[in-house]
């Protein structure tokens, strides 16, 4: 049994000095372990102490009874050894070499060895430290509660981490710290807002804690969520002070309200609109009929309330001029420039001096005072503006918008503008086209602009001719030419020049244009549209008629207005006169031929129309007249479609013939009328039913029918020999409009819901047609035979030719229905069928009644039986 070596229980660090033997022991014992004294860290010392444990163990196995002192020593050894082992098993301050593990195994229990074995592996240590750190950096609940611990842990164990990992985790720790701070701020903010909201609770009609809310707000306004609540706080203050002052319930004290306002920090009201607060308190004070001086005394130090409280205080309360200046000036100090402006506006200052006093503080901080305001006060501010330092002065001028330029120019003499500022002003005037400012030599000199320079610009801006005509500039011949060249392309401007230079009041006795002037205009007018010639015919006709004779002669008979309208259309909508001259010329030439109409009339004569001779004659006459009067409409159509006149007219012709050829003849009647029709066996007109002492004077229609068909214009004559009116439709049931499975929308519904269909072959030759209501355009769009309608029947101003296809949908081309005029007589023998339907506003009973009516008719007229079609 080895002898237990005596040792001293020393745990201090002075191992070398106090226990050289132990040190020597350590050195000997661990020489092979490759430890050196340098490595003799605490672990080594601890390890050395484990020797005591050995000793203790040995001692415990000793048979001999030990004395109490030894026993105590042994117990102490055990304890120390245990401590030593714990220390050894704890954190390492340095690295242990692998070889030392063998030595450790001798003296430590297996479990400790395992722990140590793990710990001595630096990778593992590093990973464990990192893992622990990550765990602390978890943000499960979003507030990084363990961030502080993480930071501490990192500080203590960062040496265990390798370089890259350490950097990464360091950043994580920093980031977590930052987030933690933000979160804390957020939580703080949320809490603060909640507390602020509590103060802003509207309780029993008042915000009683408004004053507290203001102070609380100011204390925490650095927090964004709190700063956002400023408007709410202010509103609460407004209401509270109003209630306190008695404004709401007429039971308050303005003095209390004023006192409370004074207690609130002034910074809260800076740049705010306190007009309501002022109004609440001030108006209540006014009600007590306090004198102006009493008001000023009561509100001393807070005159901004007076200023804000009454927009018209300056006028209605008889404050002296001096007091008003004082009120407004104090307001500026308290509320700041932007609110000051509004209040300044409300005050009516007596004199320039007062205004200057009041405006001076604003000028000193003019940036808050917008430029518009400066300019509107230009009279007062002129000298004050000049009092600003040059760079400030220039800045104000430079802030001028274009629209302000004229205003400033008008006060030019008040402002000591330097050269640069003048140049800037001149530029702004030119940009805003304020050319009147350059109208005189004096102004040109003021603005330092030359005539030539401005003329070129005027020319560019098309204002040169205005200046010329005003006599501001007398253009040289070259300049005159430039002016006219510029306006040549614009017929409006050219006319303007003419109108101005050669006034509307043309005097026959005087020659308006001199020869020289005529020479200038000649080339222009040659190139220009005949519009000029039309308007200034008296001026130009003799000279230029030859050039445009083809136009005027070819279109003779058409009114000046129509010609001008056409020319404008060509100029504005079709690319200009010059571009279209040849085409128009061709159309004019063609119009004389009337080729399509000539053919038509020949064909018409060959038809077996059952129309009275005078009607046929009238129709032909109307066609010729209408073609002439609507000629320019056909021109427009031809130009738009790039067609000849013949092509355009034929297209219309063909379309119309196609529509009528595919359609049947109908008349819409009411049930009551059908009864009479079937009884009388013919259709009557209102001419026959008109009573001489009634209101339904048919004179108008009589005159229209005379125009259209040459029927007698006297309403009282030939009452039976009058057209009856119906319509055409290519719908088999005579519907015109739209229909669904359940209903019919008919454009002829006002005339009746019973559609009488006529025998086409028998009736077609006794009918004329118009493509819209005949009464409105009796002679301009005349009725022509339905079997051969003429293109003049279509009103091109209202109809779209290319959309025309079905007579049942006339809306496609711009009409309500295709109207038919049945020329006398219109008998029931011409009826083929009657078309009725519940969908078309007839009841079952009515349908039955009609059927019975027709049955009865058919019984008495077996040769002219009528079918009833229920659709």
């Amino acid at each position, binding site marked *: 049994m080895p002898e237990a070596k005596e040792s001293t229980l020393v745990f201090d660090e002075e191992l070398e000095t106090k226990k050289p033997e132990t040190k020597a022991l350590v050195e000997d014992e661990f020489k092979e372990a490759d430890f050196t004294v340098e490595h003799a860290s605490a672990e080594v010392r601890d390890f050395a102490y484990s020797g005591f444990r050995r000793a203790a163990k040995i001692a415990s196995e000793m048979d001999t009874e030990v004395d109490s002192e030894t026993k105590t020593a042994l117990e102490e050894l055990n304890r120390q050894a245990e401590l030593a082992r714990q220390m050894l098993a704890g954190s390492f301050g340095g690295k242990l070499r692998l070889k030392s593990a063998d030595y450790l195994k001798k003296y430590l229990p297996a479990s400790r060895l395992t722990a140590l074995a793990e710990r001595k592996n630096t990778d593992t240590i590093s990973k464990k430290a990192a893992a622990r750190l990550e765990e602390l950096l978890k943000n499960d609940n979003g507030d990084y509660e363990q961030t502080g611990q993480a930071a501490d842990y990192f500080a203590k164990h960062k040496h265990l981490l390798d370089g890259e990992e350490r950097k990464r985790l360091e950043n994580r720790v920093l980031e977590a710290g930052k987030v933690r701070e933000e979160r804390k701020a957020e939580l703080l903010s949320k809490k603060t807002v909640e507390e602020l909201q509590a103060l802003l609770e509207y309780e029993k009609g008042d915000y009683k804690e408004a004053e507290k809310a203001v102070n609380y707000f100011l204390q925490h306004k650095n927090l964004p969520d709190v700063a956002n609540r400023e408007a709410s706080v202010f509103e609460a203050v407004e209401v509270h002070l109003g209630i306190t002052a008695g404004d709401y319930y007429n039971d308050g004290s303005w003095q209390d309200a004023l006192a409370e306002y004074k207690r609130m920090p002034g910074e809260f009201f800076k740049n705010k609109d306190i007009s309501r607060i002022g109004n609440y308190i001030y108006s209540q004070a006014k009600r007590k009929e306090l004198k102006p001086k009493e008001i000023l005394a009561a509100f001393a130090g807070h005159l901004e309330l007076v200023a804000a409280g009454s927009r018209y205080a300056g006028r209605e309360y008889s404050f002296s001029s001096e007091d008003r200046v004082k009120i407004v000036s104090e307001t500026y100090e308290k509320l700041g420039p932007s609110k000051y402006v509004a209040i300044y506006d409300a005050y009516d200052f007596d004199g320039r001096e007062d205004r200057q006093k009041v405006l001076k503080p604003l000028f000193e901080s003019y940036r808050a005072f917008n430029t518009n305001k400066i300019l509107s006060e230009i009279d007062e501010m002129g000298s004050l503006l000049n009092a600003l330092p040059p760079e400030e002065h220039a800045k104000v001028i430079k802030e001028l918008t274009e629209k302000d330029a004229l205003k400033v120019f008008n006060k030019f003499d008040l402002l000591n503008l330097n050269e640069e500022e003048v140049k800037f002003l001149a530029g702004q005037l030119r940009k805003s086209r304020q050319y009147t400012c350059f109208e005189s030599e004096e102004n040109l000199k003021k603005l330092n602009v030359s005539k030539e320079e401005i003329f070129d610009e005027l020319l560019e801006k098309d204002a040169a001719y205005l200046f010329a005509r005003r006599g501001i500039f007398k253009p040289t011949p070259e300049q005159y030419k430039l002016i006219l060249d510029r306006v040549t392309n614009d017929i409006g401007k050219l006319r303007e020049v003419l109108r101005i230079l050669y006034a509307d009041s043309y005097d026959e006795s005087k020659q308006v244009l001199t020869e020289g002037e005529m020479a200038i205009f000649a080339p222009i007018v040659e190139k220009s549209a005949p519009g000029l010639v039309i308007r200034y015919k008296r001026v130009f006709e003799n000279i230029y008629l030859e050039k445009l004779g083809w136009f005027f002669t070819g279109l003779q008979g058409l009114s000046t207005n129509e010609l001008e309208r056409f020319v404008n259309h060509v100029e504005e909508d079709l690319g200009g006169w010059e571009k279209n001259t040849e085409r128009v010329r061709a159309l004019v030439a063609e119009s004389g031929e009337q080729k399509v109409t000539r053919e038509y009339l020949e064909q018409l004569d060959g038809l077996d129309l059952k129309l009275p001779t005078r009607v046929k004659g009238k129709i032909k006459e109307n066609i010729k007249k209408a073609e002439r009067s609507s000629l320019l409409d056909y021109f427009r159509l031809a130009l738009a479609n790039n067609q000849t006149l013949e092509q355009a007219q034929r297209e219309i012709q063909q379309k119309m013939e196609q529509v009528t050829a595919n359609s049947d003849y109908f008349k819409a009647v009411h049930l009551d009328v059908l009864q009479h029709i079937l009884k009388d066996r013919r259709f*009557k007109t209102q001419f026959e039913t008109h009573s001489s002492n009634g209101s339904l004077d048919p004179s108008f229609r009589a005159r229209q029918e005379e125009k259209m068909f040459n029927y007698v214009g006297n309403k009282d004559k030939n009452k039976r020999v009058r057209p009856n009116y119906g319509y055409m439709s290519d719908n088999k049931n005579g519907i015109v409009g739209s229909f669904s499975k359940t209903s019919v929308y008919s454009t002829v519904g006002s005339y009746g819901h019973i559609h009488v269909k006529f025998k086409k072959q028998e009736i077609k030759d006794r009918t004329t047609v118009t493509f819209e209501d005949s009464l409105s355009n009796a002679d301009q769009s005349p009725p022509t035979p339905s079997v051969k309608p003429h293109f003049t029947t279509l009103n091109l101003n209202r109809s779209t030719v290319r959309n025309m296809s079905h007579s049942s949908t006339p809306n496609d081309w711009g009409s309500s229905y295709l109207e038919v005029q049945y020329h006398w007589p219109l008998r029931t023998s011409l009826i083929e069928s009657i078309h009725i339907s519940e969908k078309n506003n007839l009841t079952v009973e009515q349908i039955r009644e009609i059927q019975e009516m027709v049955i009865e008719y058919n019984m008495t007229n077996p040769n002219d039986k009528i079918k009833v079609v229920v659709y």
Partner: protein
Amino acid sequence: MSEYNTPIAKLGKRVLIAKEADVPRIGKEQAIEVMVEQWDLETGQLEGEFRLEQLLKFNPWEDITDIGEIEEVKARLGRNPEIKKL
């Protein structure tokens, strides 16, 4: 009743009501501008507002000249609570 207050024509159960101020214009140069209301007395329904001349052109309306008849029409249109516009 509306401003249309003067019955002027009838066609079976239908009547035409004009504005009093328009009556003198009927048949004259501005006749085309005269508008009337067409009522169905049986159903009490207003069938619409139309140009008088167009209605007269298409159907043989009869004048209402009898004062009693005029008053009866007015009374019916004024009294009837069922009357509603289409």
